[in-house]
């Protein structure tokens, strides 16, 4: 039990990182990574939503959709659950951490359309994870996102002083440097855990 959870966690954080190996959640990754503290806040918010939606969607899938033979409604049901959850997180942050709320801006409601969140829920179903495995995969997947976005925010800090062709300005150079980070993460890809 413990080893399988450990292998899921390490897999989600390092080997199959959501950003660098599976390309899930690229939009907020590129959009909110220009400052370290907003990037960190976004990572925490995404981790929280991913963990919570993994748990709730697992219960809904197992006890409602599967029981009623409505497996084809999965995508629709999951996206609605995620939308409601994000709305709740937004209300909570607005009340208790208003500074983070304003810093995240448009990207907060956009967590709904973050493919990492829907992706982790769908992958849970695909991999047939049980409840605890799903929650662990959700949280560690979020942590992987946090690691990626925090690393990338510090890379982008340095980019301001870098000298690159004019055509690469803005998004293009961000993508290329993200690619270099992905190259570094490829070093983990051969790792096998039990």
């Amino acid at each position, binding site marked *: 039990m413990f080893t399988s959870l450990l292998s899921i966690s390490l897999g989600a954080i390092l080997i199959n990182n959501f950003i660098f190996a599976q390309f899930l959640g690229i939009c907020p990754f590129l959009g909110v990574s220009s400052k370290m503290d907003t990037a960190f806040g976004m990572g925490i918010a995404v981790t929280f939503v991913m963990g919570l939606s993994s748990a709730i969607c697992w219960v809904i899938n197992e006890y409602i959709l599967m029981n009623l033979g409505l497996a084809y409604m999965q995508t629709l049901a999951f996206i609605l659950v995620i939308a409601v959850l994000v709305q709740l997180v937004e209300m909570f942050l607005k009340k208790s951490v208003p500074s983070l709320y304003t810093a995240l801006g448009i990207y907060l409601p956009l967590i709904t359309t973050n493919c990492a969140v829907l992706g982790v829920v769908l992958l849970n179903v695909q991999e047939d994870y049980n409840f605890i495995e799903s929650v662990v995969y959700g949280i560690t997947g979020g942590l992987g996102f946090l690691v990626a976005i925090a690393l990338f925010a510090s890379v982008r800090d340095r980019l301001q002083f870098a000298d690159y062709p004019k055509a690469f300005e803005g998004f293009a150079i961000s993508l290329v440097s993200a*690619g270099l980070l992905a190259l570094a993460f490829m070093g983990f890809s051969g790792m096998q855990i039990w």
Partner: protein
Amino acid sequence: MKIGQQFREGIITNNPILVQRIGMCATMAITTTLFNGLGMGISVLIILTCCNVVVSAMRKAIPNDIRLAIFVVVIAGFVTIVDLLIQAFVPALSASLGVFIPLIVVNCIIIGRAEAFCQYEPVGASFFDGIFQGMGYTLVLFTMCVVREFLGKGAFGGGLLDISTGALKLTFDGTGGGIQLFPAEYGASLLTRPFGGFLTLGCLLAFMQHMMNKSDEKKARKALAARVEVKEGAE
């Protein structure tokens, strides 16, 4: 709005990926073979067109406060339909795209067009918008597939074209090896890995930006020349 202008917007001047820069996750993830790329592009084109038409037809009935929720439900409905159709008729595509087909639900292109275009425009214009934006998206996917496959594996049309029997044949079961233009072991196989996705899209964006800068400069120079001419004429 004229159809010709919409066409130009979808393909170049307002291309969903190169100019609007949305919906990039799937673009980088699945462009490893032409089969995947075209499959994804055409699925998005169909879903986008259907959603555009439905959203546009309902635009007067949708309350403003809950419009995003309604858009998402409409999109999820069409994505489920297309997902089931692909599972039934092209199972190989469903196997190789995996989770990225249901993830079209959260592809920003579709919700972005609903929000920016279809909730104001009539059905006809929305229909063509869906087709042209979908074509622009498919074109970018196609380019990325061709580049990554050629430089990474020395092949063209993997999964879609099959020449193993001697004659060129289209296959839809994902088994075709494609046309081998140079031996696979000489390719930079790194380009078929995630790194290649980031790098190829980055270079494509830079190329696009370069061309846009150039045409802007040209326009500025022309405007300047015109102004000088007018001045000289006045004198």
